[in-house]
């Protein structure tokens, strides 16, 4: 079953908010993935 959001029925305000949130969170995910590697390299 398709949902309303998947049908693109969200207003532009919501769409922009969602996009911005996802972008910021994706950057955070990347940063935390690299964190242990950076930490280990710094300890060398």
């Amino acid at each position, binding site marked *: *079953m*398709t*949902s*309303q*959001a*998947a049908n693109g*029925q*969200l207003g532009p305000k*919501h769409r922009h*908010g*969602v996009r911005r*949130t*996802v972008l910021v*969170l*994706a950057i*955070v*995910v*990347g940063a*935390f*993935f*690299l*964190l*242990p*590697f950076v*930490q*280990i390299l710094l*300890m*060398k």
Partner: protein
Amino acid sequence: MAHEATHDHHDHHHAPQGFFQRWVMSTNHKDIGTLYLVFSLTMFFIGGSFAMVIRAELFKPGLDLVQPYFFNEMTTMHALVMIFGAIMPAFVGLGNWMIPLMIGAPDMALPRMNNLSFWILPFAFALMLSTLFLPGGGPAGGWTMYPPLSLQSSSLAYVVFAIHLMGISSIMGAINIIATILNMRAPGMDLLKMPVFVWSWLITAFLLIAVMPVLAGAVTMLLTDKYFGTSFFNPGGGGDPVLYQHVFWFFGHPEVYIMILPAFGIISEIVPTFARKPIFGYRAMVYAIACIAFLSFIVWAHHMFAVGLPLGADIFFMYATMLIAVPTGVKVFNWVATMWGGSMTFETPMLFAVAFIILFTIGGFSGLMLALVPADFQYHDTYFVVAHFHYVLVTGAAFAIMGGTYYWLPKWTGHMYNEFWGKVHFWCSVVFVNVLFFPQHFLGLAGMPRRIPDYNVAFANFNMISSIGGFLFGASQLIFLGVVVHCAFFARKKAADRVWEGAKGLEWTVPSPAPHHTFEVPPVVRDEELAHGHVDD
């Protein structure tokens, strides 16, 4: 669990399509929530069967039933399946179902990603469980996968890949939940008016985003150490195995809070309903969750006292860990204060909530004991630790999930579950879980190590009691299965829209069963409709 939603009479525009379209291609938060919950229940029984093998082997001293290696596979897989397969997906399922209903949103913000998050999981677990049938066997070095032991396993690559998949699924799920809560609330649903369950999930999602990538990094390093000649954790090449423990527990401790914060949220929904009072100290509840989440990042080394840390580190991590008792105490106090003077009734969800409050607190106290460095030198890697985390995870997280299931099941299916059998399930569970885990405190204090298939005859009696409790607890969960299946497919008694007399919140304003599409027009949020009444404490 809520297959009744198929017979949904409120939705004439989108009649359900075929099975494949509806379930495999689903982008509907309710259907995906149901998929998560069914998956979680399945994993709960698979992980439970591993636990039965463990308790059968430990029924009496001696190597009786299984090979030691298989025993170690069972302890490892039991933990991985229960943590990543049963508890976490259950919370995601409850969040999927209830968060949009509670904040007045038509669906999750990213419905297609929601579908992907779920459908990754069956493949990840099929991959991980299939290693049990490989010639070299599955992983057997414990769910913490410490090197160098874990590097000896020939199935490491499969398990690492499976964990990557689970991690991707969790991260996408967390992003979806944050995007939904921050962007899709109905007008008037201010952040500090959201139900505590929604708050608990918002904070949990941030924990997931911060620590799942760290786990992915840690297991990737295991993989490259084994197959690509790196030596992150190999002293021979200038690495350090203790480093793995730091990275793992930087993930691992927040992870245990990922498994309890949504449980706190569920209890904070159930208690006000059956006490017929707004929750006591709404803001304090929210701030306490945030505070616990923050502290969870600075306590990881309490899992490593016994490796020999610098004294300063011991002291820092000991005090930081004990500090968590403060916000946790605030929560327990507020639940009790919510009940105080309320006109309480004890339907099955409330029974589970009250048991949670008492038994989770026991787990918190044994945690405090373990936080004391000198004491932990004695308790570490004994059954005392096993007792501790089963009190917080079984009578904590799992009881909250079961309580939440009874609480919302009528909303999902449109029918009341059988209260008598729900209560039977509760009383069997609460009695047998204590028979199962309480003696493990004594075993641990007497020095019985964890993760061993055989033990000194001195430990025989308590182990036998624990095993009997284990078998009976396991059998009791079949009652749960029966009640849920009966409610979903065979129950006759219709549920009211506001299923519980004292229930407040937007989710009770939609029909039971919740129609396929809800809040396509944002609802009007009135303060008196919210669970915590007017927020101006």
